[in-house]
C-alpha cells in the first residue's frame, strides 16, 4: 500500500528520504484521481524497496501543493535527494510510473 504524506511529514518523509519518492497529488473531488488510487497502491507494492510511493490529499494539505505549484490533478512528482526530478500531469498507467521509478 502507498503511504500517506501530509504537510507535517512532507519534509521528513519525502525531502529527506534516502530513496526516490513518488508523490501522487490527489483530491477526493477528482474522478481521474480516484481512478488512480488503486494504481498508486499497485506501484507501491511492485516497486518494493527501490522507492517510496505515497499520496498527498491536496484538499487537506494545501501548503505542499502550493509549494510545488500543483494546479492540475492528478499530478505525480518524483523527488530524489529532496529535489523535484520529474513531474507528470494526468492519469498514468502502472507501467509508466514503474518505468519512471526504475529509470532514475
Amino acid at each position, binding site marked *: 500500500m502507498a503511504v500517506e504524506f501530509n504537510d507535517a511529514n512532507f519534509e521528513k518523509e519525502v525531502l529527506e528520504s534516502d530513496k526516490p519518492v513518488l508523490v501522487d497529488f490527489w*483530491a477526493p*473531488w*477528482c*474522478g*481521474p*484521481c*480516484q*481512478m488512480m488510487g488503486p*494504481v498508486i497502491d499497485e506501484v507501491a507494492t511492485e516497486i518494493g524497496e527501490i522507492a517510496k510511493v505515497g499520496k498527498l490529499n*491536496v*484538499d487537506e494539505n494545501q501548503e505542499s501543493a502550493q509549494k510545488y*505549484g*500543483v*494546479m*492540475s*490533478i*492528478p*499530478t505525480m512528482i518524483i523527488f530524489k535527494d529532496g529535489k523535484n526530478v520529474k*513531474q507528470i*500531469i494526468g*492519469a498514468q*498507467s*502502472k*507501467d*509508466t510510473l514503474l518505468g519512471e521509478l526504475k529509470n532514475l
Partner: protein
Amino acid sequence: MEGEIKDLIILGAGPAGLGASIYASRYKIDHIIIGKEPGGYLNEIHKIENYLGFESLTGFELASKMRSHVENLGAKLQQETALRIEKIDGGFEVTTDKGSYKAKKILYTVGTSARRLDVPGEKEFFGKGISYCSTCDGPFFKNKKVAIVGGGDSAAMAALMLAEYAESVTLIHRGDELSCMPVYLDSLRDNSKIKIEYNKGVSRIEGENAVERVILSNKEGGEEVVEINGIFIEIGSVPNQKMLLELGVEVDDKGFLKTKPDQSTSIEGIYAAGDITTNSNGFRQVITAAAEGAVAAVEIFRKLKEK
C-alpha cells in the same frame, strides 16, 4: 493469455466499451477489454443528470458502477495502452505497452481527446493555470478569476461548476450564440458571477510562472486583455482514430469513424462504438455510447455464429 485467439477484443473502457462488454458476456462472447483508464472521459464529468435510472451522480460514480457491473459478469479488464492493430490470419493482433492479444473481431471504442486551442502559451502553462478538466482542477481556483473557452455543454457545465468556487467566471465564445443545451442557458444568465464574452477568440495566454491573463481578439481585429488566474479549455474533442487510420479505415471530414447502423466500420471485422463514430446522429452522450456498444456486441455475436 497471449497466443490464444479470443472472439473479441474491446479497445477502450468507457461507456461504449463497457456497455458492449455487458452484452458480450451475456451472449457468451469470449472477450477482453483493453483500456488505460476504466470509465475514460466519464471520470472527468462533474455531474451526470441525464442517464436513465440515475437522477444525479458524478461521472466517477457512474464509471465505477459500470466497471463493477462488467467485472461481476466475468469480463476481464486489462489496464494497458493499445499501440497498434495488425491484420492476421483469422482476425487481428493488438499490441499494447505490455504484450499482445489476438481476436477474431475488434470493437474500437477509444473515444476522443480534448481539442487544443493551439495558441501561444497553451503548452507552457498546462498544469499552471490551464486545464482541460474543470472537475479535477476547479477547486484550485477558489476566490480567483477564471475563464472558460467554449460554448457547448461542457463549457456551460464548467462555467456553472466553477462559479461555485471562483470569484468571477468569464465564458469566452467565438460565436454569437451558445450551442449548449437550453437547460443550461437560464442558469448561466442568472448567475451574477458569470460573464459571457460573445464573438471573441483567444489569441494567446500569458503569465510569469503561472497564467495571469488571456488576450482575446474581437471581430474588428482588436485585442482585449482579461486578467485571470486560470483558464479551462472546453472546445470539443478530436477522435483518437490513429490506429485504425494506419489500417485504412474510412472517416468523415472531421475524422470520426464512418459506421453503419450495425456499428461495423469500413474494415471487415472491425466495429466501433461511442464518441468516435458517426452514428447516433452525432449526439455524443453516455447513453448513446452505451447503446452503440450494445448494438455492436449483438452484431458481433451474429457474425461469429455465422462462421
